[in-house]
């Protein structure tokens, strides 16, 4: 499989001289399977740059897996040119949202309303196919299996494990490790802790022994307390998760939008120094980087 990062920034695009090396586009990851099937993880603004290349390859079939419906993971989708070109086939996969009672079709429907976008949803000329996926229920694309797992974020967020011919990738989308809502000693603490441990273990199991883990490491340990509950991990929580899962390579992504390239490298190095990552290769995700496994 081949992986390419088209967007690694969290929350909001952050172009400018201080983010030039790692890139300012929001989340989008291209995955090419061994059969050259095209899987795209999230449609943040990075998908627009990618679309320029794809247009030359028309007709295409793209399988876009949406981790969750926050802006930085969907904003590029109305600008994904292949959706307007007849002959292309786009499958958009995503979770059921219990608040709206809708699946991934709503991601396009909401964004392409008159007030927000000049082209109507009905004017997308490609074949678009929406699939509401369920946690633990695998989807097959050729020889590749994609398995969604529920993670922890302020909106329903699915992590995806992509497995093909013995190689595997896991992408978290956005994820904050679970924390107890009760104080130690309070009634409810122990029961809640048991629930957390069970769920955390099932998340570790879902990413067990992956070749590549791409995980949300928005914050530093110092920043985290004031961002608790916002739904993001830290460099340290990602390293610990990757080691518990036995991942071979960890890519830290969802870079905090106000963090300059220099600062990003600095806080990353500090986090690495706190851990003994013997069997784990930890890297910063960078826009434009390609990996083969």
């Amino acid at each position, binding site marked *: 499989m081949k992986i390419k990062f088209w967007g690694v920034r969290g929350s909001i695009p952050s172009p400018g001289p201080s983010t030039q090396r790692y890139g300012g586009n929001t989340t989008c990851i291209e995955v090419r399977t061994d059969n050259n099937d095209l899987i795209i993880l999230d449609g943040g603004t990075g998908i627009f740059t990618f679309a320029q290349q794809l247009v030359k390859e028309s007709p295409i079939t793209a399988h876009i897996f949406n981790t969750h419906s926050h802006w930085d993971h969907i904003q590029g989708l109305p600008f994904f040119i292949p959706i307007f070109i007849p002959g292309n086939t786009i499958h958009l996969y995503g*979770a*059921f949202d*219990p608040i709206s009672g809708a699946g991934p079709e709503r991601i396009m429907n909401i964004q392409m309303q008159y007030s927000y976008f000049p082209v109507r949803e009905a004017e997308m000329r490609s074949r678009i196919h929406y699939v509401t996926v369920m*946690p*633990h229920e695998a989807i097959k694309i050729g020889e590749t299996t994609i398995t969604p797992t529920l993670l922890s974020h302020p*909106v329903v967020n699915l992590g995806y494990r992509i497995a093909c011919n013995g190689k595997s990738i896991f992408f978290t989308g956005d994820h904050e490790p679970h924390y107890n*809502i009760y104080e130690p000693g309070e009634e409810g603490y122990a*029961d809640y802790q048991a629930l957390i441990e069970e769920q955390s273990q099932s998340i570790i199991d879902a990413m067990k022994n992956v070749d590549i883990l791409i995980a949300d490491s928005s914050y530093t340990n110092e920043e985290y307390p004031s961002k608790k509950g916002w739904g993001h991990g830290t460099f340290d929580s990602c390293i610990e998760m990757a080691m518990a899962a036995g991942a071979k390579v960890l890519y830290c992504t969802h870079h905090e939008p106000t963090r300059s390239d220099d600062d990003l490298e600095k806080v990353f190095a500090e986090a690495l120094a706190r851990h003994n990552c013997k069997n784990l290769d930890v890297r910063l995700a960078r826009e434009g980087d390609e990996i083969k496994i």
Partner: protein
Amino acid sequence: MAEISSELNKKLSEAVGKMPAFPKSVQRILELSRDLNCPPKELVSVIEKDPVMTMKLLHIINSAYYSFPKQITSVNQAIVYIGLNTIKNMALSFAVIGVLPQHNAAGYDMQRYLMHSLITASLARLLCQKFNKDGTDPGDCSLAGLLHDFGKVVFAQFMPEEFKQAMAYSAEHKVPLHIAEQHVIGIDHSEVGAMLVEGWQFPKNLSFAIRSHHNPAEFKTTLQCCLFVADILSKHKSLNYGAESDREIMAELPPAIAERFGGNLDEIIVKLGDLSNVVAEAQAFAQTSKVTPT
């Protein structure tokens, strides 16, 4: 007993999905949702005290869309699996529907119903914690207590005339309400409650307990026994929180049940100790206050 028709079951399920919740929880959810730093445990304690909110939340979470490996029976579980903010927004979407009227067309006292449900829930949990021998989850007993009479609210809300007649029949003929319901409506609240819970993918043991809560002869599980004794105890003279319409004040437990709990009602009450907290907590929640949902 007459079976509820699948058409009526579907109609009631849909109606309950749009049913407003109790005034206090609606008020608290609206307050909490305005507070950015609302303590999550407060949100939990509000939802899990409201039978309508609990029913709706567990219904959505247990729906086929998430295919959890096991059925979810608590608000805390729902938070760990699906996320705090999503649960908060679900509660808010329930709250903005409005509030259940205190005075309904059936003349059924909703506040007293809520008191009875909350006390039965607490007692069922306590009984399970004290007398459980087979690993039954006290949380499941509490949930059964909270929801066991849900069928009555459904009757009061959606079949008020028939329910009113059933309550009158029960008073006139001095028979328990569920017998009167069978006579007047053709089906009783335990069956309606169980059907709803079943249709909404709640665990089977919960629907068994709700369906059988007036038929101790059928009991097999700890959950059924804890619910039954909790229901009887809450109507007992020392607590006196039966539903207004109850004509089933029982002085003695059936021998097999008494044996299971190592004594009869008076002895169980002694073993449970001071229950004033249970009543005070329920009262704090069930007392109504005027709210105008925004």
